């Protein structure tokens, strides 16, 4: 599904078509290059299902990375009241 909208210039559309055409060529010649993309990013294939189902949203201090001590549990409140990040 490709929806460029009216915002894109002829040059930008040509760049996109160019990219898609070169990918189609790669699929014919070096399919593994496409199957293992992206190559220019620090991380490549993330486990998207796991990221959606079990997201890690809270940073927990470790000894090496904790310049400030973690807060002690507040006795008055239930666990939900603890500060979260």
């Amino acid at each position, binding site marked *: *599904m*490709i*929806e*460029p*909208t*009216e*915002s*894109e210039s*002829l*040059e*930008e*559309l*040509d*760049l*996109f*078509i*160019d*990219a*898609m*055409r070169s*990918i*189609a060529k*790669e*699929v*014919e010649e070096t*399919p593994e*290059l*496409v*199957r293992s*993309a*992206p*190559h*220019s*990013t*620090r991380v*490549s*294939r993330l486990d998207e299902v796991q990221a959606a189902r079990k997201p890690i949203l809270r*940073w927990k*201090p470790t000894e090496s*990375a904790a*310049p*400030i001590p*973690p*807060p*002690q549990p*507040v*006795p*008055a409140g239930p666990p939900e009241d603890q*500060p979260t*990040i």
Partner: protein
Amino acid sequence: MATATETTPRTTLGKVRPHQTQNESLVFEKSSPGKRAYKMPPLDVPAVDPAALLGDAHRKTPGLLPELSEIEIIRHFTRLSTWNYAIDLGMYPLGSCTMKYNPRVNELVARIEGLAEAHPYRPDSRAQGILEVIALLQKCLIEITGMDTITLQPAAGAHGEFTGILLVRAWHESQGNPRRKILIPDSAHGTNPATAAICGYAVENLKSNAEGGIDLEALTRQVDEETAALMLTNPSTIGVFESQIHKIADILHAKGALLYMDGANMNALVGKARPGDFGVDVMHLNLHKTFSTPHGGGGPGSGPVACKAFLEPFLPIPVLVRNAPSAPGLDSETWESNSPGQLTWDYNRPQSVGRVRAFYGNTGMFIRALAYILANGPDGLRLTTEDAVLNANYIRHGLEDLYELPYKTASMHEVVFSDKRQAALGVKTGDIAKRLID
């Protein structure tokens, strides 16, 4: 076939490059004790004991907050922002979900002090400026959709669907039977069946024909006296305009059912065709798609619902009305309402489905959408629609010899390819999308 690639010389447009290292630790990991990005002024009021004031609510330990200097914070978030891919960085061709440029004039207008600082609890008489903005936007959207009336309250597309189907249900109830089911084509947005279900309707799937449109025979078979409405996206998610829309509306209306249109793809119709003219009874718009207000993380969204006059009594409260010119004059002391010609909110609507959003929706988006409409004008909006459709078809023409086109019908705002040829070589759509990142 000559393609754009072979005939057009490459330009100097550079490709998007992310931040060089992409190795940025969390603010908590960068933190070191005592660093500050601010300095509090000396206390110039009497000190109080928060523990005595707050009792049990007073926390015993300080919150775990990172400590950084201002430049560290600026660098951290600036670096992170360079990892994003956004419309401000490059083309964002997300099909089915118009992601257009957000013109800067919208932001300029939305930041005008009297509009940006307007308080929703101001008396109507002192909020006439923003109420005029809302009234003018309503007028423009009614004209664009060809409907009779509108509510701007819903805060998103799916929220608009929900509001629209509430109107459908309230109208059927007023006719004596809320009815049982809603028909939804298999090409619909996933939010359509969710909306029908949450409004208490059974969802019945409607099969598409080979061209990706509604199968009229199947529709005639499936519509009965228990059908409340058909929820139709036109043009559909595969970019095909439902050319038999008049017949679809007639089949529904003959059985007392209504036609709901998901306006997600209005970007292909503005200034060219009006849903109100082709049989639609109620529809929603997405200001964050068609009318260039920020989409996604830049939100919030806005999903106005436009409808025909017979659904007007059921609109969410309050409804914006203009006092009759014969009403008593403006009170010179309080400036309170009831002055002739002033805009005010009408809450006295016994058949209303009730309120669906606090205040009157995401007002900041109304200002941006109106700025977009006025900046373009009728001819500009029409040209925008033509360019959107032309651009989609230009891409179709440039790629159709290499990628499979599952539907041969002319494309509207978007073009759909399948990975049929590439899948034979073990490469799927997702892989191609990942390679596009490079």
